[in-house]
């Protein structure tokens, strides 16, 4: 049924349709509306046989999910930013133990400096923690990917993060085609665990493993992700048969087949990029885009195929590896290894800076002319950078950079130190 609905509420209702048996979460902006709505849905009996457990921290939230999943329950949690970092140890445990937990990430920057706005620093920090990571472009994607995530997680016994841009998606009210419970029930069978803690049949989960077997255990985790490369498109196809929407999959090409320049991105910025592609195509620029839905596992071959006709590739990403540049671009280059296709990186949208069509067009035009520096920081204010660098050279005790810049910009009172 079509609904005009806030993204967080749509996701909460989708989770409810997936009939989780245990939900435990700790609220953090911008994830809060999701777990608040879910607590209401559990209280009103709309999630069926489900226990909502209040915990004192994110570490506890995921630890409870781990316990619930190990006992054979379908378990769900959600977090953002510092919350994800706080549960980091449990994040590795969930994947290491092969527990099919589904977790929503309302993507938000990581401090310091403290910042509640959107970028991908949080989920990217844990990109190699053994979880599958799916990125939503729209709230429709977010709804559909969560339903597919439970199926994928349980089929392979691996945890899945569904990442959706904080505020930009979580707080946007837009049209979503909400599935009904018959559809979800026919797609998502009850959870049949491959391992379960049962006093009648004792097993050990999390046995200590030494050098004699650790590599083999780790390889098998890698193997699950390789299997996921095959399973994700199959589940997307099956989803389309039941729900009538082609969402999910590993990647989604957009006007890229014959494009000389192809932009690769993930998350909600892909929507803005599609608009720019249309506008620049109308002006005669040969441009296309590829949306990466599954970032882990990374679809090396599918992306390589999608980029095979490109003369150049531009990666737009909302994260930064200090001292290196982009994070996503490393995986994109890996998929192009052995080719001579130039790859440019655009770092954009950090800490919630708006990514505008105007700025993207300017950067894409520079890249098309092969004049773009790599990495390029979209809308970086060089005046502020140069000023702060010069100031910090003047004296040893130059003070905190964040506060100095806020003062320089007149956003807080007083003068820089």
């Amino acid at each position: 049924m079509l609904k005009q609905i806030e993204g967080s509420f749509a996701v909460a209702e989708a989770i409810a349709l997936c009939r989780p048996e245990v939900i435990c979460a700790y609220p953090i902006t911008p994830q809060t509306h999701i777990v608040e709505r879910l607590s209401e849905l559990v209280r009103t009996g709309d999630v069926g046989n489900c226990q909502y457990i209040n915990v004192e921290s994110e570490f506890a939230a995921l630890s409870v999910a781990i316990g619930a999943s190990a006992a054979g329950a379908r378990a769900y949690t959600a977090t953002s930013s510092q919350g994800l970092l706080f549960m980091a140890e449990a994040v590795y445990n969930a994947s290491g133990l092969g527990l099919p937990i589904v977790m929503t990430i309302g993507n938000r920057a990581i401090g310091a400096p403290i910042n509640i706005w959107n970028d991908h620093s949080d989920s990217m920090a844990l990109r190699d923690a053994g979880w599958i990571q799916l990125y939503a472009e729209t709230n429709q994607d977010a709804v559909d990917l969560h339903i597919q995530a439970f199926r994928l997680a349980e089929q392979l016994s691996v945890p899945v993060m569904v990442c959706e841009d904080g505020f930009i998606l979580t707080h946007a009210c837009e049209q979503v085609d909400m599935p009904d419970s018959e559809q979800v029930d026919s797609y998502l069978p009850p959870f049949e665990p491959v391992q379960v803690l049962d006093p009648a049949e004792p097993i050990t989960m999390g046995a200590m493993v030494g050098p004699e077997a650790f590599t083999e255990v780790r390889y098998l985790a890698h193997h699950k992700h390789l299997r996921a490369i095959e399973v994700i498109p199959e589940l997307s196809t099956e989803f389309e048969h039941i729900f009538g929407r082609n969402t999910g999959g590993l990647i989604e090409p957009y006007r890229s087949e014959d494009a000389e320049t192809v932009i690769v991105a993930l998350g909600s910025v892909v929507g803005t990029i599609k608009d720019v592609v249309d506008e620049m195509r109308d002006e005669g620029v040969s441009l296309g885009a590829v949306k990466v839905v599954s970032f882990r596992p990374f679809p090396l071959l599918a992306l390589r195929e999608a980029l095979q006709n490109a003369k150049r590739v531009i990666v737009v990403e909302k994260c930064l590896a200090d001292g290196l540049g982009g994070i996503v671009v490393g995986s994109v280059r890996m998929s192009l290894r052995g080719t001579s296709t130039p790859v440019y990186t655009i770092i954009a949208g950090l800490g919630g800076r708006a990514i505008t069509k105007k700025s993207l067009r300017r950067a894409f035009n520079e890249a098309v002319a092969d004049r773009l520096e790599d990495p390029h920081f979209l809308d970086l204010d060089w005046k502020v950078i140069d000023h702060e660098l010069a100031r910090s050279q003047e004296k040893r005790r130059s003070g905190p950079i964040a506060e100095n810049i806020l003062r320089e910009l007149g956003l807080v009172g007083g003068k820089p130190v």
Partner: protein
Amino acid sequence: MVSAAEMLSVAAFIEGDHAQAFPSFGSERMGAPVVAFCRIDDKEIRLREPVMSPDALIVQDSTLLHQVDLFSGLDTRGYLLINTRRSYQDLGLGDYVTRFPPHHICTVAATEWAREFVGRPFPNAALLGAFAAVTYRVKLESVEAAIRRRFPGKLGEDNAAAAAKAYDSIRTN
């Protein structure tokens, strides 16, 4: 303001349009200056940038007029609605508003309508009624339906009445 943008998006949705409403993300709290956006289109809205050149601007709190640059992106072919009982001259906008077609600008005493019909100074409903009257972009019935969806029961009826009053006061003038 965030609720107003959402309700406007629901009104457009009811009419079969695509709509996207979102707040100026951040630490929203009662009393702080807040911007919310709404896009309406007859096709899917993919753009995620803030609205920088609005076709219509609704100013809920006229005390912000000379504190924040509210009009930077507003084209003079656009629409301007201000919640106030004062005149454009009193607001210091006498010269500015002459750039707009006269039927594109409007002051509406939305807070007063809200006090009268709802008993509380929340001007959203009356402003949306005025928006429908001035822009013709959504119908009053759709605005009323969106308000009732957001606020079930008497609160919704009272707000819908405030919207209708604001709408009628503009269309009959």
